[in-house]
C-alpha cells in the first residue's frame, strides 16, 4: 500500500467499501457510457442489499452514475440532483450468485442503448469490474481502460494494437458472438491515448469506449 493510500484518499463517509467503492463502480459506468444515462437500475447483492441505506451506498451509487467525484460534498444531496436531471432510477435486490458480498450490477439506458456492468467493492475503496455487457473481466480501474467490440476475425487484434501508441499493461480478448463475428477486447493502459478516433475508424472496430482513470 503506498503512502498516499495510507494517508488518504479524500472521500465522503462513512465507509470506503460502502461509499467510495460503490461510487467508483458507478462512476466507471458513467465514464464508460460517456455521460449521464436516462435510466438506471442498481441491482444490489449480499451486504450491499442488506445495509445500503445505513451506509449511504444508495447515494454513492447515484452520485457515481451522475458523474460526481468521490469528494464532492453534494453527494449527500444526490437524490435532489438526480431529480433535477430527470434521472429514472431503481434499486433492486437480487442474489447474483457466488460473487463478493459487496457487489452491484448496474443497468443503464442512454441514447437508446442498454449497457450492463457488474462490479464489486473489495475493500479500502478498491473495486473490481467483473462483467461488461455480459462479458466476464477483472478490471481494477487503476489503469486507463479501453473497451472495444471488434470483429472476431484474423488480424483484428493486431490492427488495434498497432494503432495504440502507449504501453499496454493488461489485455483481455473474449468472443461474444460467433455468428455475428463479435469479440470484446479490454485493454488496460499505462497512459491515456490521444488517438481514440483512429481506433474507432478501424474497419474491425464496431464500438470503442475509453475510460480514463480518476487521478
Amino acid at each position, binding site marked *: 500500500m503506498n503512502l498516499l493510500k495510507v494517508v488518504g484518499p479524500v472521500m465522503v*463517509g462513512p*465507509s470506503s467499501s460502502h*461509499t467510495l467503492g460503490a461510487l467508483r463502480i458507478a462512476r466507471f459506468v458513467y465514464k464508460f457510457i460517456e455521460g449521464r444515462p436516462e435510466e438506471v437500475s442498481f441491482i444490489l447483492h449480499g451486504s450491499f442489499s442488506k445495509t445500503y441505506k445505513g451506509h449511504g451506498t444508495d447515494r454513492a451509487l447515484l452520485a457515481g452514475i451522475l458523474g460526481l467525484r468521490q469528494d464532492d460534498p453534494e453527494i449527500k444531496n444526490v437524490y435532489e440532483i438526480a431529480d433535477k436531471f430527470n434521472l429514472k432510477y431503481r434499486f433492486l435486490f437480487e442474489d447474483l450468485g457466488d460473487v463478493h458480498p459487496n457487489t452491484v450490477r448496474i443497468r443503464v439506458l442512454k441514447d437508446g442503448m442498454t449497457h450492463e456492468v457488474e462490479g464489486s467493492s473489495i475493500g479500502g475503496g478498491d473495486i473490481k469490474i467483473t462483467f461488461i455487457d455480459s462479458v466476464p473481466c477483472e478490471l481494477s480501474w487503476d489503469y486507463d481502460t479501453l473497451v472495444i467490440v471488434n470483429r472476431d476475425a484474423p488480424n483484428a487484434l493486431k490492427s488495434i494494437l498497432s494503432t495504440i501508441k502507449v504501453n499496454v499493461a493488461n489485455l483481455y480478448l473474449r468472443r461474444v458472438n460467433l455468428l455475428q463475428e463479435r469479440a470484446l477486447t479490454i485493454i488496460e493502459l499505462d497512459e491515456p491515448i490521444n488517438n481514440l478516433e483512429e481506433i474507432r475508424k478501424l474497419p474491425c472496430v464496431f464500438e470503442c469506449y475509453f475510460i480514463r482513470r480518476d487521478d
Partner: protein
Amino acid sequence: MFIWKDILEMSRNIPLHQVILNMEMFETGVDPDEIKEKLSKMLKVILEEAETQYGKKHETLTGMTGDNAFKLRNHTPNFLSKFSYMATVTALSIAESNASMGRIVACPTAGASGVIPGVFNAMVKIFNPTFEEMLEAFIVAGGIGKVIADKATISGAAGGCQAEIGTAAAMASGALTYYIAKDAEKVGNAAALTLKSIMGLVCDPVGGFVEVPCVKRNGNLVNIAISSSEMALSGIKSVIPFDEVVDAMKKVGSSLPQSLRETGEGGIANTQTAKSLVSNLKIFLL
C-alpha cells in the same frame, strides 16, 4: 516495505520526514516533491473540515449518533487540557461528519478519520505552527501508518479496531511528538506506546454501521495519542520496539474470531440494546 528500524537508522543524518519521502520514492518511483504536494492537499482538507465541522450537530445515516461533538463543545472541561479538549471535540466532529456522508480524509480509514484532524486542529489553535511544520509532522504520521499497513493491516475487517483506530492514534502520537521534538526515536516510542495500549481492541459496530462505538472511540483514542506522546517526550521508552509491537498486533488481529472483525455480530454489537436498536432501524432502512 517500510520497516521502522530502517527508517530510524536512516534518520540519523537526514530529517525523519525527508527519510519517509525518500523511501516512498524508492518504492513507487514518484518524485518526493509530488508526494509532498499531494499530502499537503490532504492536510488542507483535514484542516478545512476540522474548522467547518467543529462542534456541529450532524444528521447521521442511522441517527444513532450526531450530537456528541455539539454536547462536548457546549461543556466546560473539568479534566482535559485546552489542547486535549479541542482535539476531542474535533475528533468527534469529524467522526460524526463521516457518519453523515460528509467529506473526510480516510486517514488512515474512514471509520478512524477523526483522530488525525483532532491533533492537527488542536495544534493549529494552541501552538499556531507554520503549514510546513504541520506538513512535516503529517508526513511522519503517514510513515508510521505505512509501517503498520506494510507489516500488518489497517483494516478493521482484517485486524479488528486495534488496526484501524490503533493505527490512527499511533500516527497521531508520532505526529505530535515530531512536531515538538523532531526526534525520530521518540516518535517511534510514542507510536509503540499507543499501539500497546489498545492492543486487542475489537471491531464491533452496532448493525455494521460506522457509528456506535466508532464515533466515540475517535474521541477517546485521540487522548491516548496525546498521553503517549507526552510520555515519549518526557523520555519514557517503549520496552518493546515499534516494529515488534506491530508484528504482535498483527498476530492478535488474525487470532480474533470473525465475529469481532467488522461483522457486527460480536462485542457490543451483540448486546440486547444493540439488537433492539438494529431491529428498529431496519424498519426504515429496508
